[in-house]
């Protein structure tokens, strides 16, 4: 019986198509619910999948065995003022970690300001200036593309040297070689000793538009009191949790936090961001689920309704088919196929519109990397499922009609 229906699959598809063509307007209206549902699902699906791949590829660039000691946690839950009143993270904390941590492989202080950068007649506003040490190559996983990074001596000497991000170098120097040139950052001149490898964009923001200077130089120019961010690289990623515990101990002692009170600093980690992102996508998936359920209901009821009409209109046809030898299963498959075809039309249109909308959103978010085509299967599966579910009752009704009564039907 099952084999029969497979052999006749082409026939059923043809019949379904004919019947749909014969009632174009009605079919289009019927399939609208499915279309809207599938469009929404595919749009969100495509967007999330695009974001996933994109964020995944960017996050893997950023070290997973690095933690950041800061005043604020990256994901703030609850009272912002509680964090605001905290003391800054300062040089003392950096020295303490460097001296006492046994699990840290590299400890890098970082401080950031925004200044004008200029070379020749080229002048760029709001360039990020990063003050740090030679270990930034390890904690920030950056490598010079040309020239070199700072040495320990450069840092100790508080030299007026700078290493440029690829984007900044390109904008200031165009095609000419930046190495050895002097650029102005804020009010002072710095000699360029290196240019870093390009890191690419993140949501359309360049991650290469900055200048790095020795931290001592930075602090002399912009002040000693600015809060630091301290990046700490674990010796092995397995020891990350131990490292965090060790850092907590060192910091609580240095900052004299009483035993009963909670930490007045944050130890941030990439996990927090991925966790935050996962929570956000979970919400989106929940929305998909709800929309799927609603459009299943609305679109499905529409299809059931129109299939009931179709079956009633074609009672004599059903009677005739039975008279010339159609079995229950033949009639059932014919009308099921018609329901599936109806909802698949909505499905296919929804997939196309959803893919377009999804890629539009991704390109507005400046996310690159292409559209995930698994959406096509999701859309097809979903609409075929709705077709089967909503078409079953009318198809069953058609299949179990009595041949004589159907032939007599006026």
């Amino acid at each position: 019986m099952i084999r029969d229906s497979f052999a006749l699959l082409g026939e059923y598809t043809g019949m379904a198509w004919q019947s749909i063509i014969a009632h174009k307007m009605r079919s289009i209206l019927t399939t609208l619910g499915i279309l809207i549902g599938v469009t929404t699902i595919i749009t969100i699906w495509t967007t999330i999948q695009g974001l996933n791949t994109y964020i995944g590829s960017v996050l893997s660039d950023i070290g997973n065995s690095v933690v950041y000691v800061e005043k604020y946690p990256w994901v703030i839950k609850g009272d912002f003022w509680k964090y605001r009143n905290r003391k800054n993270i300062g040089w003392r904390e950096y020295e303490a970690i460097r001296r006492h941590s046994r699990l840290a492989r590299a400890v890098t202080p970082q401080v950031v300001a925004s200044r004008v950068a200029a070379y020749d007649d080229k002048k760029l506003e709001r360039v990020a200036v990063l003050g740090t040490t030679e270990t930034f190559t390890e904690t920030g996983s950056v490598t010079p593309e040309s020239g070199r990074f700072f040495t320990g001596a450069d840092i100790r000497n508080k030299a007026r040297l700078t290493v440029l991000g690829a984007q900044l170098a390109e904008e200031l120097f165009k095609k000419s070689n930046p190495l050895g040139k002097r650029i102005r950052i804020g009010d002072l001149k710095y000699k360029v000793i290196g240019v870093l490898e390009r890191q690419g964009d993140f949501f359309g923001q360049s991650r290469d538009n900055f200048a790095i200077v020795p931290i001592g130089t930075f602090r002399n120019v912009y002040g000693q009191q600015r809060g630091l961010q301290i990046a700490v690289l674990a010796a092995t990623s397995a020891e990350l949790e131990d490292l965090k515990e060790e850092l907590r101990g060192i910091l609580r002692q240095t900052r004299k936090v009483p035993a009963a009170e909670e930490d007045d600093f944050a130890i941030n980690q990439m996990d927090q961001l991925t966790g935050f992102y996962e929570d956000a996508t979970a919400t989106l998936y929940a929305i998909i689920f709800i929309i799927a359920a609603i459009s299943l209901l609305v679109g499905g009821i529409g299809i059931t309704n129109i299939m009931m009409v179709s079956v009633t209109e074609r009672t004599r046809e059903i009677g005739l088919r039975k008279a010339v030898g159609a079995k229950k299963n033949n009639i059932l498959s014919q009308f099921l196929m018609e329901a599936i075809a109806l909802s698949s039309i909505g499905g296919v249109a929804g997939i196309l519109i959803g893919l377009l909308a999804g890629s539009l959103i991704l390109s507005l978010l400046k996310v690159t990397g292409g559209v995930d085509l698994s959406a096509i299967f999701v859309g097809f599966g979903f609409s075929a499922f709705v077709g089967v579910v909503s078409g079953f009752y009318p198809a069953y009704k058609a299949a179990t009609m009595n041949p004589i009564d159907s032939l007599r039907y006026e």
Partner: protein
Amino acid sequence: MLIDIRALSKKYLLGAVEVLALNEISLSIERNEYVAIMGPSGSGKSTLMNIIGCLDVPTAGSYTLNGQAVASLSDDELATIRNKEIGFVFQTFNLLPRADALHNVELPLIYKGVPKAERRIIARETLEKVGLGDRMDHKPNELSGGQRQRVAIARALVNNPSIILADEPTGNLDSTTGEEIMKLFADLNAAGNTIIVVTHEEEIARKSKRIIRLRDGRIVSDEAVEHEAAV
């Protein structure tokens, strides 16, 4: 024996009223017979045809078709018998309005599971046999009444059934066209087909070889037709 009917009854319940459409009919028909069934309106002709055609089942009695007892069969088994053994011709043609003549004739072959290419060939040949070789791609509404009935006859013939059942096949046709259709049945019978025709018209019944008359669900007469000359 092709058809063997014994003490067959069919009862309908209309509310509280029982209608005995067929009342203990016994009848047998051999292969290659050409039978006309006559009788006043409501005498049970269509009911008998539907039971012979396995579209309906009797309430009592037995019906054996080609040696097979029909009463014990499931709906799907009846469908298979209708497909292989029976060709129906209806008073109202019952063609699929959106399909062309060729596709209408193909229909029984689809449910028999004949592959498409082969189906086409058989359906074409059959349409040619009923004289519609030049109208294959016409839709029913592009055909005359007589041509539509020819398409329906081709559809009834296409599976090479044991019996062709026609319930008032000329009822919707003018007398000339009706005679052409009856001539076609005579030719088909001469070629070896078994044919049972329900009709109201004596003249048409005379074209057959045997006339069975019903009244109130019973057979009142069953006699051979005398033909002066052989065809």
